[in-house]
């Protein structure tokens, strides 16, 4: 029977929403067995308390000054220790930057096989996962006794909280002595919703022409709709927008209700990150752009003209 340990990610005492997708995968795996949730940090008590309503047999808070800033070595050690202490058969993490960084080290410590970025749980050892930039879906079997997976957040619904039950269990964390040192974190601050949490995303590509062009088209439309902003790798590379805005195979994978692709050609590496969106709108001046093959609604037009018109029209209908 499965004993599943889900590792939730927190920052400043608040659980990151991506963790709720990992909890959903954990609940599916724990059927008939038990699910535990673990949170790590300098003081993760509040974050842990907020996780009491998800049906976990236990919520563990691993507190230590050495866990104040995320680093792979101490986090991997503490998670592996927690997994061993609770006889976990599965360790589940969200496929965030942290999850991707730490999960393989946890697997190595536990002698576990690992499946990255799973999109579905088939049974307690079989998972589906996207490969080749999402052009192929593989069914994979982890053959080791202990199994580690990271969860593609856009493929699992966020778990809903019920009434809080039980209390937080304290885990005596020993982070060891890491060889890497945390120096600094430069946060990209934004008043807009986060890409992976937004219900509407407005993304721009090279067709926005310049840094100024992006600012004049993508951003006002996003602000009118209360949307998050996204970008292609091409314009991130050109330095028009921060790296954190990149959508695609090597950027963020998103699945909003509504996705606007403005001046984006539709390279497979970009499409890999947004094709799960419910409704896709593409505006591109090239009628043969591949993006039109994945768009529900395609408009062949110049952005400079179409976006101001679109904003006028939206203001009209939304009053």
């Amino acid at each position: 029977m499965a004993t599943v340990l889900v590792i939730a990610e927190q920052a400043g005492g608040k659980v990151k929403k991506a963790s709720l997708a990992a909890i959903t995968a954990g609940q599916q795996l724990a059927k008939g067995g038990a699910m535990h949730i673990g949170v790590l940090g300098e003081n993760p008590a509040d974050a842990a308390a907020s996780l009491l309503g998800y049906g976990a047999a236990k919520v563990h808070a691993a507190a230590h000054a050495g866990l104040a800033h995320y680093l792979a070595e101490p986090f991997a050690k503490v998670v592996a220790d927690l997994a061993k202490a609770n006889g976990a058969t599965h360790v589940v993490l969200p496929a965030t930057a942290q999850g991707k960084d730490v999960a393989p080290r946890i697997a190595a410590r536990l002698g576990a096989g690992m499946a990255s970025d799973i999109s579905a749980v088939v049974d307690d050892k079989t998972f589906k996962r996207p490969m080749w930039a999402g052009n192929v879906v593989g069914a994979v079997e982890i053959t080791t006794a202990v199994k580690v997976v990271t969860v593609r957040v856009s493929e699992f619904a966020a778990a809903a909280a019920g009434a809080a039950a039980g209390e937080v269990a304290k885990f005596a964390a020993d982070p060891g002595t890491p060889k890497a040192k945390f120096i600094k974190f430069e946060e990209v601050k934004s008043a807009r919703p986060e890409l992976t949490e937004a219900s509407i995303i407005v993304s721009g590509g090279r067709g926005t022409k310049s840094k100024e062009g992006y600012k004049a088209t993508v951003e006002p439309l996003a602000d009118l709709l209360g949307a998050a902003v996204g970008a292609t790798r091409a314009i991130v590379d050109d330095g028009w927008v921060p790296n954190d805005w990149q959508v695609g195979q090597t950027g963020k994978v998103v699945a909003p209700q509504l996705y606007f692709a403005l001046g984006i050609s539709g390279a497979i590496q970009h499409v890999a990150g947004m094709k799960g969106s419910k409704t896709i709108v593409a505006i591109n001046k090239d009628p043969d752009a591949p993006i039109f093959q994945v768009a529900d609604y395609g408009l062949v037009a110049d952005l400079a003209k179409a976006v101001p018109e679109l904003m006028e029209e939206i203001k009209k209908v939304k009053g």
Partner: protein
Amino acid sequence: MKILVTVKRVMDYNVKPKVKPDGSGVVTDGVNMIVNPFDEIAVEESLKLKEKNGGEVVVLSIGTKDTTTQIRAALAMGADRGILVLADGSVDPDAAARLIKAVYEQEKPDLVVLGKQAIDDDSSQAGQLLAEYLGLPQATFASKVDVAGKTVTVTREVDGGLETISFDMPGVVTADLRLNTPRYASLPGIMKAKKKEVKEFTPAALGVDIAPKVKVLKLEEPKARQAGQKVPDVATLVGKLRNEAKAL
């Protein structure tokens, strides 16, 4: 400084992979094979570090005999010598990490540079596994690497911004796309590469069992999105978003 850099042979990223009818793999006949794009960036970074700090760049790949082509491509960019670990069939990231570890123990490099992910399996595991197996620090998804004396300082692309960490060598770095733009091999570079040494090993000779911990049972193509419609103007678009898609 001595750098060990890994390159994986993968299908050209411009080719849309086709799954074989029995789901046992993807069609590779007649498909152009390249160096995994992230690994090309890892090679470039290794060469830059050597140019600044002196030393040697050793290229390692695990694959069939054909993989020599990808090793030679890295040698043509300027790497000094190559190592090929011969393995037929698929080697999972865990087996790859344990093979890289065995080569590490022979070569004793100061730094191992890998790509952040292979664009075929999209696992993003090998670098982290290697670091844990060797008990070394890691800096994954690197967008900037500076070396001063023994200390490596790395800027990493993470959720919500950029993080900087540092460690004293030896250690493991995995390359993200924005770390650099790989150079093209020059004609003299290509000529020289032909004479550079490429040593071959078998996993058995390295004492590594490559039986996979994760088996790929079956591949399939995902459901394609339904073809959409073109709309003639902005008013029609907004009308459809409101009334048909109920998205506005």
